[in-house]
């Protein structure tokens, strides 16, 4: 059993597990942090941005963290744990000869589709007259500034996929439900379990009769909107692959939510606008729910909230129809019947409005001061670029970062100097080190495999030994491109005895052991299976070595008699 690690990013994993001649890809996250090295894609021409000195490229390139460690066409199945971890799917399933199946839950598929649609939309609505590729040559890359110079294998960086690729990739998805047992080629069984992180997010159990691998990716023990994490099913794993821990181990999500609300209220009261760059699904539902309770108390009832994204409407609607995948509280609302999320009421009372983009209705209905939720959190593309240009110059306005995926300082770099206030409230509900060590104590896997980042404290806080995994035996670390042999000793396999042989075996266990053969009943029963039936049928041919008495008995007795003789020999009586 081998594990091929294709991604070094701990929260956007991509591993391939070879197990009983089945090749299983676990997640395919798309690391988009490389876009931070490029200039933003403005929706309207910005003289300021185009006059910036230094390297100018408007190439919306995305870094694809894949190395040709193995042939993608040999992959049998891809298991998706949550919608953030499937963004590279079209790169894997399209134009690679991939013929396998992708397994994901329904919310993961639907919301993943939305996020991909949004990404494609962001890229395609600002077409570039030319795209630079020459910089990828080694001689030129060497001369480039900053992190670009050191980036490895830029030649494998790819352009964003098209909607056609997305549709084709998603057509290969087979829907599964939590705790559904899916048989792969009769060799392995895979089961998704609720992971508590987002709508339809799952951990996976990959098991045969004697081996069990748990794949834990992006799990949460906090009470937010999704169904709580299923921990007990992870017990008795031989190997537990642990990825997707919190990226903000020192930030408490509840505290951050409080900061978020108080900063928002402060800015609005002072007459400023609030900009929240965020993904269009996930934490935004919790933010809206929190604000729903907050605005009444804080007297902000008249402030408009805008959610701008090509998929804003679908995202808000989808959240309401996946009752089966929600936490108990929200589920019981559906029985009333009421929509599970309170943002339905915000929309109904016109407090929350959503628009596909800043063009069209939004420009005429837009009132300030207001709160705007929009993407992309990298501030490099999407409608957020426009708001940065619009509001960046005023110190009344505030930008509040809630997504932990991008460094906010890097994200803001091209917009400097900036007068607007910046507040960093990263909300990452995934497991922290304290929770994970408690979890591991409970489920007790024999071995833990994790990204090497988790085996040492973060570089910036090297004294914090509590921000790493300390386990006995120590976890097996992996980095990008490593191939790990998993410590398995397969010794047993499950087979089915044919019913024709079965009855003999069951019959035997009922046997009354006569005193003539054994002085006492045997403790164990040993029975050679080879050709028992033939032996029975032909045994009279060898009566010279067998007792003649059996000849008159019925066939089943012959078998028993025959076997008893063997026992006598085996047991030395």
């Amino acid at each position, binding site marked *: 059993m081998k594990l091929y690690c294709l991604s070094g990013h701990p929260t956007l994993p991509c591993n391939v597990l070879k197990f009983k001649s089945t090749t299983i890809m676990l997640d395919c996250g798309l690391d988009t942090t490389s876009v931070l090295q490029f200039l933003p894609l403005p929706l309207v021409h910005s003289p300021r941005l185009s006059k910036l000195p230094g390297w100018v490229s408007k190439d919306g390139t995305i870094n694809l963290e894949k190395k040709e460690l193995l042939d993608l066409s040999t992959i049998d199945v891809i298991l998706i744990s949550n919608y953030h971890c499937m963004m590279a799917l079209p790169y894997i399933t399209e134009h690679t000869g991939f013929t396998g199946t992708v397994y994901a839950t329904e919310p993961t598929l639907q919301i993943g589709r939305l996020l991909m649609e949004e990404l494609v939309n962001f890229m395609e609505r600002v077409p570039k007259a030319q795209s630079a590729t020459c910089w990828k040559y080694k001689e030129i890359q060497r001369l480039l500034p900053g992190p670009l110079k050191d980036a490895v294998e830029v030649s494998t960086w790819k352009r964003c996929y098209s909607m056609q690729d997305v549709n084709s990739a998603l057509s290969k998805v087979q829907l599964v439900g939590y705790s559904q047992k899916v048989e792969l080629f009769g060799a392995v069984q895979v089961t998704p379990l609720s992971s508590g992180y987002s709508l339809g997010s799952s951990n996976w159990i990959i098991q045969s009769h004697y081996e069990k691998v748990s794949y834990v990716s992006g799990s949460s023990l906090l009470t937010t909107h999704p169904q709580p994490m299923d921990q007990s099913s992870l017990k008795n794993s031989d190997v537990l692959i642990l990825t997707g821990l919190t990226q903000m181990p020192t930030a408490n999500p509840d505290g951050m939510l409080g900061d978020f609300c108080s900063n928002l209220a402060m800015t609005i009261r002072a007459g400023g606008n609030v900009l929240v760059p965020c993904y269009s699904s996930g934490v935004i539902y919790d933010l809206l729910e929190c604000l729903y309770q907050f605005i009444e108390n804080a007297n902000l009832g008249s402030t408009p909230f805008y959610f701008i994204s090509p998929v804003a409407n679908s995202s808000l609607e989808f959240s309401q129809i996946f009752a089966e995948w929600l936490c108990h509280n929200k589920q019981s609302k559906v029985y009333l019947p009421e929509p599970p999320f309170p943002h339905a009421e915000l929309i109904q009372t016109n407090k929350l409005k959503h628009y596909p983009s800043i063009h069209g209705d939004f420009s005429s209905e837009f009132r300030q001061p207001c709160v705007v939720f929009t993407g992309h959190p990298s501030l490099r593309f999407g409608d957020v670029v426009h708001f940065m240009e619009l509001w960046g110059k005023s110190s009344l306005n505030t930008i509040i970062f809630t997504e932990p995926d991008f460094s906010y300082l890097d994200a803001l770099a091209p917009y400097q100097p900036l007068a607007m206030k910046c507040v960093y409230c990263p909300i990452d509900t995934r497991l922290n080190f304290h929770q994970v060590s408690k979890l591991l104590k409970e489920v007790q896997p024999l071995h833990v495999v994790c990204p090497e980042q988790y085996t040492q404290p973060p570089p910036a806080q090297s004294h914090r030994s509590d921000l790493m995994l300390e386990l006995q035996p120590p976890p097996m670390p992996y980095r990008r491109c490593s191939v790990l042999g998993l410590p398995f000793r397969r010794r047993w*396999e499950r*087979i089915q*005895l044919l019913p024709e042989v079965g009855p003999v075996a069951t019959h035997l266990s009922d046997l009354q052991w006569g005193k003539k053969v054994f002085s006492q009943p045997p403790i164990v029963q040993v029975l050679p299976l080879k*050709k028992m039936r033939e032996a029975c049928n032909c045994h009279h041919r060898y009566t010279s070595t067998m007792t003649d008495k059996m000849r008159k008995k019925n066939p089943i007795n012959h078998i028993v008699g025959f076997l008893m003789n063997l026992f006598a020999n085996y047991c030395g009586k």
Partner: protein
Amino acid sequence: MPEIKVTPLGAGQDVGRSCILVSIGGKNIMLDCGMHMGFNDDRRFPDFSYITQQGRLTEFLDCVIISHFHLDHCGALPYMSEMVGYDGPIYMTHPTKAICPILLEDFRKITVDKKGETNFFTSQMIKDCMKKVVPLNLHQTVQVDDELEIKAYYAGHVLGAAMVQIKVGSESVVYTGDYNMTPDRHLGAAWIDKCRPDILISESTYATTIRDSKRCRERDFLKKVHETVERGGKVLIPVFALGRAQELCILLETFWERMNMKAPIYFSTGLTEKANHYYKLFITWTNQKIRKTFVVFATPGMLHAGQSLQIFKKWAGNEKNMIIMPGYCVQGTIGHKILNGQKKLEMENRQTLEVKLQVEYMSFSAHADAKGIMQLIRMAEPRNMLLVHGEAKKMEFLKDKIEQEFTINCFMPANGETTTVITNPSVPVDISLNLLKREMALGGPLPDPKKPRTMHGTLIMKDNSLRLVSPEQALKELGLNEHQLRFTCRVQLQDPHSDPDTLSRIYTHLKSVLKGYTIQHLPDGTVMVESIVIKVSSSAEEPNTKVLLLSWSYQDEDLGSFLSTLLKKGLPSGLSSM
């Protein structure tokens, strides 16, 4: 022998009060717990005293599963759990869990408040009963206990309807509840994988009908409505609030638009508004093409109570009016009576009602027809078939057809009658990987996965586990000495040569016959074929009668028996002795 027992308490050769008991692998499961619309007395509910004469049912049942929210499948649930007494888990899908208590409450109101019955379950009982419900997701494998697992499949029929697979070890039963095999405007078609259950328990409401194409039926329906409205009549369509209503409404709405008709479509309120909410919140259960708005007609569907009956009473006297019964009607209901052409109805308080309006029947109800049932059998490939939820005569017909086409047993037990099916489960055994690899290597590098092969191993039964290991390992593990079992055989031959000559003649003969075997002529006067020893002896009195002594170990029994047969035939002449 292991067996599975199925006993219908209701819906055995009947439609209504579905309640089927299944005993499988030592577990007892109740499938559905419905009421009969046609009765108002004790016969309304299944006879739970069959399970136990006194006391609660909890210790006799491992779980209760409800397939969908129609009252003939869940109407007796509060009675069973709260009045008879059952505290174990009750499984149903999310939409069923949401809608079921509303229908139960509605049913309770009609019975208690309108008809004034006492000794009926209360609102609190419905609430308490619903607290015992565990929601099921589609395709989720739910472990009821260590051995019993259940899994729900999509059944179409109504919002949240499910088929369930019940599995203990390698034995399994599938219960379909009500289902339909053709997708319609608001729900998809039922689907199940090739799970090969020991018994498939299927409904058979439309066992003998093979419904004409949907389009024809729809056109017919629209034509009838149109004609009636044109001549100034009114149309009453009693339907269950959640189900056919949505389908027919979408149909009518498009028709109204196309024909530019002005006649208003009214629908009785109450349940309906909520119903539409449910459809929105559980949209993942519906067909892709579902529309956002619905209009709903009068409920309930069999004209046994409620608003549909009130309207019917008012309109019955006018021959211009029409009533379209879009679904099945249970015996005893007014719906059933007027469909059978009864022109005078006895109502409460001895009043009679004359029926003058036109009565039309259209099979729009989402049940599987004969074709659909056969299709499901093809999908699931059951070993036995059991029919419920249908009329005896029609079942008989379908039973013959199934037995003919699939050559499997088909049962149709009546209420209280037990069907026993003997199963033949295979025995799971753990095999040592070493042994498996060794045996695989014997058959060449790539074994044919489709062909079974015999293999040689030793089965150890210990502590309730069965393990197959190599004989050497078994001996080692159990601390036993290996004992050889040898077969010895005497073959008499007429051969006028000296003993050593006969032996070398045998050697030559075997060499020519058994190519590819190790054959040795040993100096101590024996011939060895692999491990088989052959000796020659003769007595002084009859020097020409040679006695060949063959001896082989148990493992070489194939070769040994072949050799003995071969040598019995004698040696061919013309063999040179070396």
